[in-house]
């Protein structure tokens, strides 16, 4: 169990390694969520405009 927030953030001196790993993971997962959302909106707009080209 961690005693303080500062100690938690410091990760026993490994802060740069631990937090960069977690940040990259978050970014990659977020990207995988955002892509279908953006694509869905784009598809809806194009189909409503009758634009079926690839």
């Amino acid at each position, binding site marked *: 169990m961690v005693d303080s927030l500062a100690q938690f953030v410091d990760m026993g001196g490994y802060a740069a390694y631990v937090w960069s*790993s977690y940040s990259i993971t978050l970014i990659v997962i977020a990207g995988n969520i955002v892509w279908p959302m953006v694509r869905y909106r784009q598809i809806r707009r194009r189909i409503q405009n009758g634009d079926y080209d690839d």
Partner: protein
Amino acid sequence: MPRWMHKLASPPYFYRTSGKLAPWLAWPGVVLMLCGLYAGLVLAPPDYQQGDAFRIIYIHVPSAWLSLMGYSALATTGFIALVWRLKLAEIAVIAIAPVGASFTFLALVTGSIWGKPMWGAWWVWDARLTSELILLFLYLSVIALHNAIESPRTAARASSLLALVGVINVPIIHYSVVWWKTLHQGSTVFRMDGPSIETAMLVPLLIAALGFTLLFGWLVLWRLRVLLLWRERRSRWVQRVLAHG
């Protein structure tokens, strides 16, 4: 092919059913992942050798497991696409590949970041790391091949075949730490004599892994539905779905 499979593979039916299933993957996935990561970052004790750096395990190991599970799913749908020529399976191949590649990338990058303070090197060409890198290239080749061919059905068949051939790499990655002398440590969870990792560290890992798996399923489903919508853009059911928001 069984009747239920035929029914499920019909695009409008699948789109509707998967839309109902999706939140049941997303929410439990996110909650379990956050619980597992919280327990791993806060509750689990530091490792006696690696200190707090070992906490990278909670994203590295689930990502690595999913890179393999994802590829197995890719090869399975590829097989179904080749044998039964199911349109849905053909699209699933190209829905799984980018998500699988993402998690393979994460396994490699977080492993590299973990390796630097522990091994003193970002990268070594040992059997585990090399075979995992090949896995990333396989995923990327499946995507590239698919993008390079104009006809969607030919593209799907070509990339399915490539996915199927590449599956040979999956057992190689899994057993690489047994067959070769690797700097990468051996398996600590799936062992004949039970996990060698302490329970207080193992439980958060299993929770996080379950969360990651559900999330992976959701990400694939999400992508698959959007790809399906575009592929079927000239059908009436798509018009109907889009008109209703």
